[in-house]
């Protein structure tokens, strides 16, 4: 009985995959067949439509129209019935919880970006000199494949707290206790919990920064470094005067990418603390407004604020990326 049920589950899963993936392909070929039936002189004008319509439609339905709608809804009340002017934005910049979310976001931005990029750069330079470079890089890069939810579980386990008289199963508290201190509630202590969450993001992003920066470091011409060495420059001088300036463009791209990722991170906060105990950030607060408080006006306003924060960073990023593409 259980076996046939499982078989049924797997079969319906396969059917869903085939239907979902194949449906769009069949639609395209059907449209092509129809266009072929058209008179020859109209065909070249209709054909681009067949190729572009699916993309344009999806982008319109899922990105363009909803974004405009969210902007519109941000001027209405919780149930989107009465116009409230700028009240939601006023709330967003004056409410205590929102101010804490902004403060936390700044903390996240500075610490995650600064430490991930800094550490990533140091590793990128160091790893270039060891023979087991691929292995070391793979290990540091690995967290990048793990979801925010998975990473949250991993770190909840590290931060696990037991009362002082019982054994500590969390690694961090075990170390602290073995050094003679009291165990710490990393996720409930308001002075520490934000940093506990930030560490997770640093753990996830450092490998990303390292991989990109490592590519850039390897791109520095060897003779430039050799020449500096012959002139008697110390390794630190080479790092500061040659390495960093020569890869500054990559450093900017990596930083902006991490800034955008940090601005949009909601999963870690959502899974670890649910945004309680002063740990909210803008993106997690938006989801809470939407689900927990059912205030669609405020949720929309926060989303607009998020967009306004992301746009300038993304624009520099895309510009830089295109410059890099052009020079490659």
């Amino acid at each position: 009985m259980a076996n046939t049920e499982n078989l049924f589950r797997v079969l319906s899963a396969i059917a869903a995959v085939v239907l979902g993936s194949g449906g769009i392909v069949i639609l395209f070929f059907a449209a092509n067949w129809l266009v072929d039936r058209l008179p020859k002189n109209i065909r070249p004008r209709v054909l681009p439509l067949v190729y572009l319509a699916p993309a344009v439609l999806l982008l319109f339905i899922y990105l363009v129209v909803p974004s405009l709608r969210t902007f519109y809804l941000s001027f209405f009340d919780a149930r989107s019935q009465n116009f409230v002017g700028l009240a939601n934005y006023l709330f967003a910049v004056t409410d205590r919880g929102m101010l804490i979310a902004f403060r936390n976001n700044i903390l996240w931005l500075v610490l995650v970006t600064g430490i991930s990029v800094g550490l990533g750069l140091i590793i990128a330079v160091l790893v270039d000199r060891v023979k087991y470079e691929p292995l070391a890089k793979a290990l540091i890069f690995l967290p990048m494949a793990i979801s925010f939810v998975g990473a949250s579980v991993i770190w909840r386990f590290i931060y696990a707290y037991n009362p002082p008289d019982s054994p500590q199963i969390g690694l961090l508290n075990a170390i602290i206790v073995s050094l003679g201190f009291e165990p710490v509630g990393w996720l409930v202590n308001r002075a520490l919990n934000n940093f506990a969450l930030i560490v997770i993001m640093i753990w996830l992003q450092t490998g990303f920064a390292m991989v990109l920066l490592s590519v850039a470091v390897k791109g520095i011409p060897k003779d430039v470094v050799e020449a500096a060495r012959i002139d008697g420059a110390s390794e630190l001088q080479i790092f500061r005067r040659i390495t960093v300036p020569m890869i500054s463009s990559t450093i900017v791209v990596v930083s902006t990418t991490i800034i955008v990722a940090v601005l949009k991170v909601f999963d870690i906060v959502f899974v670890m603390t649910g945004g309680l105990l002063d740990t909210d950030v803008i993106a997690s607060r938006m989801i809470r407004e939407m689900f927990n408080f059912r205030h669609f006006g405020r949720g929309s306003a926060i989303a607009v604020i998020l967009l306004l924060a992301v746009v300038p960073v993304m624009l520099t990023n895309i510009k830089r990326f295109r410059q890099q593409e052009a020079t490659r």
Partner: protein
Amino acid sequence: MTTLPRRRHGSNKFMDRLEQALTSAPVHIAVIGIAVLWTIPTAGLLVSSFRYREALTQTGWWTVFQEPLNFAQYHLGNYVDVLTSQGMGQAFLNSLVISIPATIIPIFIATLAAYALAWMHFPGRQILFVSMVALLVVPLQMTLIPVLRTYNLLGLAGTFLGVWLAHAAYGLPLGIYLIRNYIGSLPGDLIEAAAVDGASHLKIFTRVVLPLSVPAIASFAVFQFLWVWNDLLVALVYLGGNQNVAPVTLILRNLVGDRGQDWHLLTAGAFVSMIVPLLVFFALQRYFVRGLLAGSVKG
């Protein structure tokens, strides 16, 4: 150039090696230290997922290294438990059902659009391309509330179709950008030669352009697949409470909420959710990195 080092190597080889080892020791310590530090959290999870429930709550996972080869302290029971009674098995299937079409659909649509944008002639081509790519800046939070409302009206909330289309749309700007740039750089002679031979756009697209675009498509595919597999936000919002269609990320997050202290379930569950991304990571690291580099502009 060649004689000097050889002479030095001949006489002072040992001293040279020693000096080199001493100066490079801090580098090795730093690199190995960081690599180990970065691996410990995941390793702890993996080890714990094989330990017995009682052992997990009474001693730290590192205690297994007192006698690491004592296999009596490991078992697969946590995995059986989490896969069957906690619904992780169904969730694993759901994740596959969500991720595969949510990768194939945007690839197909993006490649079609990219081909038209690169090799078909029609007015407003460049403007259309730029405005599609400009959508990269829109955080998907901007779209959640209106799309969810529409889904509720149409009955698409809590369905696979709803998540497929949403993920496809969110991935399109990046896909179009990547694949259009690649297809645009294919040699024009090739496409023109095919056209002169009387091949239709459909033939050129399926026979010439598609096979040649595999590297760009692969990078985008790996990126999109992992993005969808690891996604919590889209699943949470559009699938809501429907447990029958929930992916691994959603079930894992519910486990954290409901059974937050049951580490035997959490560790095994987390590893079930990580196994596919890790396999993709190790098997396709080249494409993974390339997709990641390109995906760094995704909004």
